[in-house]
């Protein structure tokens, strides 16, 4: 814990946070939860790299910065609606600009039967009681410091429910847009997502910016996938290269449910994602596919942890990383098989390409196994492009940079091969290529 005599500018910036009026203020339980979380965050401060969860991601520089509490002009920033369009994604859409819901950019008419989709700010003003359990949570882990801050200051986000048995055909798009403002600001968004028994949902989470900005965004998502439900979650993180984005997603999977996550991390000066999945019901399955492609001084940290705690559960994780220039890619993939979770089948593969002498990759696949009827394996590599493949392409007349881009794109492409939405798959591929030197 940092215990510097003078408070950090980051903490100093929160001085007036307790008097902030947020959606839902006035409900005693919510006020209490927000106050307690704020006090806990301020008391603990920002963890240093001695904390295992932050070993490879230093928060020292962030601590020296002061962010404005929210954006008063968030409702007015001009955002080009075309920038929000993703090919192959044409369903309902919810848009947040600097953490604030924007009805004018969203598409909430004609929601399919069985889908409830509302901004959190609305729900908090109308009937916050239904979210009491989710919003009065306390976070105690060092890895969750920003979740505390989020719990204290978030007033908007997504509340999404799929009724039991409903199959939502068109993908639902959630956009988190960073827009320039008077000063560097911090926004906090909170998602509560629930898939009823036997339901199906395609979710697309998109982080982007209209222009360069240095904001800090935090996003906490709770996703419950009930028995037999199926979730496909596509995550495209392409936020401003100077911004900071810290996310925590937690998934609970019921019996025979199946969730698949496709993540593409491209933007951010500092982007962190803590992704926790608990396989709580028998035969639940969770698959993740992820890629990061970094350049400049980007620092992207993905902390994946999957907990098998029921019979015959399965998980398969395939992650690829590319770091160029002075970028640093961090990956932790922890698999826990709890006592009694017999029949668990877990595998994790993390391969990384290091393209520059100043870039760095830190990876840590972990296995914690407390049951014996299990199959668990992980593999991780850090290396460079195959020289022979490079030679082959160059001998056929491809310039060095092009050959390198082609092979790097191929390295990443394999991860998204199973993404059913073909148009989106191609878009991802192009987005990767566009990021390569």
């Amino acid at each position, binding site marked *: 814990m940092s215990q510097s005599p003078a408070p950090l500018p980051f903490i100093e910036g929160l001085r007036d946070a307790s008097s902030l009026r947020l959606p839902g203020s006035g409900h005693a339980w919510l006020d209490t939860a927000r106050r307690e979380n704020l006090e806990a965050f301020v008391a603990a401060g920002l963890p240093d790299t001695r904390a295992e969860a932050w070993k490879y991601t230093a928060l020292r520089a962030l601590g020296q910065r002061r962010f404005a509490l929210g954006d008063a002009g968030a409702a007015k920033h001009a955002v080009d609606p075309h920038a929000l369009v993703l090919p192959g994604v044409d369903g309902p859409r919810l848009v947040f600009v600097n953490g604030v819901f924007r009805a004018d950019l969203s598409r909430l008419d004609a929601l399919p039967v069985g889908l409830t989709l509302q901004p959190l700010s609305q729900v908090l003003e109308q009937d916050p009681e239904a979210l009491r359990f989710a919003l009065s949570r306390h976070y105690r882990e060092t890895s969750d410091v920003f979740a505390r801050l989020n719990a204290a200051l978030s007033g908007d986000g997504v509340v999404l429910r799929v009724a039991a048995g409903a199959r939502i055909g068109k993908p639902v798009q959630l956009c988190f847009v960073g827009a320039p403002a008077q000063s560097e600001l911090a926004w906090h968004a909170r998602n509560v997502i629930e898939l009823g028994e036997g339901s199906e949902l395609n979710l697309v989470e998109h982080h982007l910016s209209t222009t360069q900005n240095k904001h800090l965004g935090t996003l906490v998502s709770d996703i419950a996938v009930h028995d037999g439900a199926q979730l496909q979650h596509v995550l495209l993180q392409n936020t401003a290269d100077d911004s900071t984005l810290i996310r925590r997603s937690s998934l609970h999977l019921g019996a025979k449910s199946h969730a698949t996550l496709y993540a593409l991390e491209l933007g951010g000066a500092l982007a962190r994602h803590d992704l926790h999945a608990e396989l709580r019901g028998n035969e639940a399955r969770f698959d993740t596919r992820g890629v990061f492609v970094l350049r400049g001084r980007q620092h992207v940290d993905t902390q994946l942890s999957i907990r098998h705690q029921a019979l015959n559960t399965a998980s398969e994780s395939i992650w690829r990383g590319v770091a160029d220039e002075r970028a640093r890619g961090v990956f932790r993939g922890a698999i826990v098989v709890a006592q009694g979770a017999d029949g668990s089948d877990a595998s994790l593969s993390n391969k990384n390409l290091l393209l520059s002498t100043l870039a760095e990759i830190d990876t*840590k696949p972990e*296995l914690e*196994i407390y*049951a*014996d009827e*299990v199959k*668990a394996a992980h593999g*991780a*590599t*850090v290396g460079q492009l195959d020289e022979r493949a490079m030679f082959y392409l160059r001998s056929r007349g491809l310039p060095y940079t092009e050959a390198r881009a082609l092979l790097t794109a191929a390295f990443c492409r394999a991860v998204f091969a199973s993404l059913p939405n073909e148009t989106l798959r191609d878009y991802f591929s192009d987005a990767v290529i566009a990021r390569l030197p």
Partner: protein
Amino acid sequence: MTIENDSPAVLRDNVEVAAALGRRYEAGFVTDIETDSLPPGLSEDIVRKLSALKGEPEWMTEWRLKAYRHWLTMPTPHWAKLNIAPIDFQAISYYASPKNRPKSLDEVDPKLLEAYDKLGVPLHERAKLAGVAVDAVFDSVSVGTTFRKELAEVGVIFCSMSEAIREYPELVQKYLGSVVPTGDNYFAALNSAVFSDGSFVFIPKGVRCPMELSTYFRINAGHTGQFERTLIIAEDGAYVSYLEGCTAPMRDENQLHAAVVELVALEKAQIKYSTVQNWYPGDEEGRGGIYNFVTKRGDCRGDDSKISWTQVETGSAITWKYPSCVLRGDRSVGEFYSVALTHHRQQADTGTKMIHIGKGTKSKIVSKGISAGRSSNSYRGLVKVEKGAEGARNYTQCDSLLIGKKCGAHTFPYMEVKNPTAIVEHEATTSKISDDQLFYCRSRGIGEEDAVSMIVDGFCKQVFRELPMEFAVEAKKLLEISLEGAVG
């Protein structure tokens, strides 16, 4: 009642008896020998007394005090996946030595010799047959080193650390603490302050040590800790293979063992360090046993040098041990082969660190963890490739075998790569002995326990292959004994 088990020769003699009484920790006898020991407690005063008792020069006392003062400022580490009751450092006696200090091996107390005989450590004529030079450390002091004359003829120095401090102060001053500095970590700092003895090996330029060197550590007295310090230096082009074995009596209390081993390999030198660790592991309920906190590090200082660690860890209630290689010289090689077995309530958190600094450095890690009973067994490793380590290469393989439903097997590998020409690979698997394998063996008339030990033996083969032959036989037997009662 106990039986000796540790050398193949003795093993063979006692196979029948061992089979009859096999389910016991066989090195758990106490030898009734008068000991001189310091009163329990730790303070600057104790450190000074210890140093004075050993007749050390001023610089050594100061070195210890510096470490002690640093240790006082350090917090106890909690990062390992170990559940350790707080250790009362004031309740431990930091020095115990047999009262009749021998002048030469011939004067060694016969009871002591008997104790080593029971352990199967060849201190006397048997040593000649075994062809292994032995330094035996009993509680806090070295009680005898064999084959010194033969080794001296080729220029090899093999003696106890206390002697080295007296006889070769310039070598000790030059190398002691140069690989593991006094303030390196909590237990290394403690060791630097209070280490009592250990082995010192110096292989001069171009010499290939003509025989295997070996140290045998034994904790005998109660309420004592053992803090040994080993320093091995291989000059340019030298080669040495070194074996280490450990045992302790069965006691209800937890005893502390905090050792430091430093290896220095200069240009083209090779050091092979093998350990069979069989400290008392505690009983079925986890009462007693040794707390084993060891810092082992090898420094490949010269180009083309090589350090290889092989360990078989079956004992200790708690194992906290990470034999590491600092690959400083260009094209230097580090290897780590490990079998760690935990049973009952044993806890092990062990692994290695490979720090690639020089160009074209290579490292290989093969770790096999076996957990049974209610034990917890973790591999924790770091492979770090620094910016300048052009073309560095690492391959890591970690396999865990689970026997039973209440044990845990964990893998925590860290990879930090800063050079784009490096290739680092890690693979890990966790599984149990499959029913198919067992069924196959049983259908051929092999009993369940034998089948399990066959399968475990196959699982560990990659590591056993790296051990010197005598040790490999011992290690295999040790695994069998440790696993008894694990199945069925």
